[in-house]
């Protein structure tokens, strides 16, 4: 019997290679989603009428099953990593845009007035006041988006074995080695929980002014 971390050679990766691939396929889309949702959320805060339609569009995108999304994109990007990553980036928008909008809106008006009185321009006020105060809300959104993204990558297995750790599921079936499926599921879950922990740590580092106790959500 082969060891738990020995993978069949048709996966073309070592165990750690798959872990690296998985993290890249899962995290790049969340990063792209964050970069995209910052300006979108800012527009939604500035122009209130934009928020309901933006929320509507993202919810509709979210309702499309990831599997169908992947398959339709094959037509445009082939069976590649891009095909897996685009839907994941869009899904993360659904979580991140409301999180950032709520976070930025939760900044007390007195704080903004004080910043203005101190001569802060719009850009500086956004970068130095609004964004830092919104950090807890943004991180809360990032935690949900990151963990779901890590677990969704595995569906990419269905489109030309682009599911990183999810590819082990296919081999688990073909060689009838359930241990491979256990390995895949457990590793993905552990990666998700670790990524979640890193984000919690990041929040603690970025918001030193917040009370430490009872602040964990």
């Amino acid at each position, binding site marked *: 019997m082969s060891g738990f971390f020995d993978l069949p050679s048709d996966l073309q990766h070592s165990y750690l290679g798959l872990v690296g691939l998985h993290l890249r396929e899962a995290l790049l889309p969340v990063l792209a989603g964050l970069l995209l949702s910052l300006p979108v959320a800012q527009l939604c805060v500035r122009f209130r009428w934009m928020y309901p339609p933006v929320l509507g569009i993202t*919810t*509709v995108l*979210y*309702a*499309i*099953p*990831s*599997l*169908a*999304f992947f*398959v*339709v994109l094959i*037509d445009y990007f082939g069976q590649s990593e891009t095909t897996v990553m685009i839907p994941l980036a869009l899904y993360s928008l659904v979580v991140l845009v409301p999180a950032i909008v709520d976070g930025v809106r939760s900044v007390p008006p007195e704080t903004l007035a004080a910043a203005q009185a101190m001569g802060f321009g719009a850009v500086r006020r956004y970068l130095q006041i609004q964004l830092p105060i919104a950090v807890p809300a943004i991180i809360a959104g990032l*935690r*949900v988006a990151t*963990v*779901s993204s*890590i*677990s*969704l*990558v*595995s*569906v990419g*297995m*269905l*489109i030309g074995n682009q599911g990183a*750790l*999810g590819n082990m*599921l296919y081999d*688990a*079936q073909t060689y*009838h080695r*359930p241990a491979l*499926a*256990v390995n*895949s*599921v457990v590793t*993905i*879950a*552990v*990666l*998700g*929980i670790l990524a*979640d922990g890193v984000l919690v740590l990041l929040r603690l580092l970025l918001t030193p002014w917040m009370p430490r106790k009872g602040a*964990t*959500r």
Partner: protein
Amino acid sequence: MNVLNFAHSFFSDSAHWHGYDGIPTRFAEHLRYSLEALLIAAAIGLPVGLLTGHTGRGGNALALLATAGRALPSFGLLVLMFLWIGFGLLPVMIPLVVLAVPPILVTAYEAVRSVDPSPVDAARGMGMSETRVLLQVELPVALPLVLSGLRTAAIQIVSTATIAAYVSLGGLGRYIIDGLYQRNYDKVVGGATLTAALALATLGLFWAAARLTVSPGVRRNG
């Protein structure tokens, strides 16, 4: 646009509208899986979420449990359960329930926690039992959030139930999986459209449910 052509040729083909592999059959299957999974998840998540929210204890444990639930990949869980249990509805239900319990549980907890404490104290002062405080004061005020948790869970179930087709069960995912292997994009787009439509209908249903069940006083405040 490409996608529109695919959808059009799928829905205009009359062969897709009846019989064993027809849209009504697949739709009914999908609805059944989704409803069953949602009911099981609600039966687990709601009582636990409401009770922990009421007592205010176990919040950290709940958050941990929810993260763990979210981190478990539905698709991987499906394949694993299929290998262990074999063909049937159970290997499909387990990942769907695992997927749906965290949002229901966490929002129910948060919703009850965030209820204004003064009416709760008033209710206690009037001599209400803890059960009545929870059911007649906290629950009605928390209802909009509780419903939003159920809605998130329902939408995720509807769109994830498509993976049931991978282990030879029916549902709308049948079109997507079959279409993928047959390189028949009409089917894929058709299946995706139907699933998205069902998810949107779910959204509408929850909106209507919120209009009907949330007391007007609560709605004004929210």
